């Protein structure tokens, strides 16, 4: 027996749903993402240059810059500001490392009501976990292939 959701009506309906989706101002969103993302990277560059002016090497300054951005994002998330920036900036606030930090702080704050151990700590990486897992897995696979074979 044909399930309702597999029927021709359902397929027609699905096509209609796609047609009736409200138009998204992709151009506007892309521009906002460009500006927000560019600005966050600019802030990173400013911090890095400033640190290097004290004689730190490029690599060390880079690590400190990452730490500084992680801190800034944690603060802005804690103050309830980062999600407002993200509403406007979209990918511009998700892609920089600040987005990663926000994705760690947000669940930590949210699940704190379920306790410091089983709530906050256990659920802290619910969003960012995949980035770490897939980052490490691909680093190992690609890195090994490169190191062993070439």
């Amino acid at each position: 027996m044909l399930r309702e959701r597999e029927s021709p009506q359902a397929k027609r309906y699905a096509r209609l749903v796609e047609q009736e989706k409200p138009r998204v101002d992709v151009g506007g969103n892309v521009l906002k993402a460009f500006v927000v993302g560019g600005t966050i990277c600019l802030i990173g560059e400013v911090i890095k240059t400033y640190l290097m002016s004290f004689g730190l090497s490029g690599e060390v300054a880079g690590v400190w810059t990452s730490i500084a951005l992680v801190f800034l994002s944690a603060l802005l998330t804690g103050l309830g500001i980062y999600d407002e920036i993200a509403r406007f900036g979209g990918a511009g606030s998700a892609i920089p490392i600040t987005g990663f930090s926000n994705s760690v702080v947000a669940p930590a704050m949210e699940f704190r009501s379920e306790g410091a151990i089983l709530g906050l700590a256990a659920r802290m990486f619910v969003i960012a976990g995949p980035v770490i897992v897939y980052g490490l897995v691909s680093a190992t696979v690609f890195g090994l292939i490169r190191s062993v074979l070439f």
Partner: protein
Amino acid sequence: MNYLLAFLFGGLVCAAGQVVLDKSKLTQADLMVILVVVGSLLSALGLYKPLVDTFGAGASVPVSNFGHVLTQGVMEGYAKDGFFGVFAGGVTKAAAVLGAAILFGFTAGLLFRPKG
């Protein structure tokens, strides 16, 4: 000049990401994972470091850089300690960022209440 290059390249990466978000069913989390994997691949091909050298923070601030750092760590670990180095190498190189994320995340979780 550095500032302009960082702004432009970072903005470009984010703009491309926004197109993906708006035109596909992928979520922000999917996008972050894709970027980190792409960063890792480019890193293994020796293509990410030139991006960082040219565009500075424009290439090192996006999360793709995390993939790059991990991959360099794995490769350096292998060069130094063979397969043993593979296990430790990636995480060691990225340790500072991971440590910071956990420490600041934990502290913020304790100090701040969500506002909704």
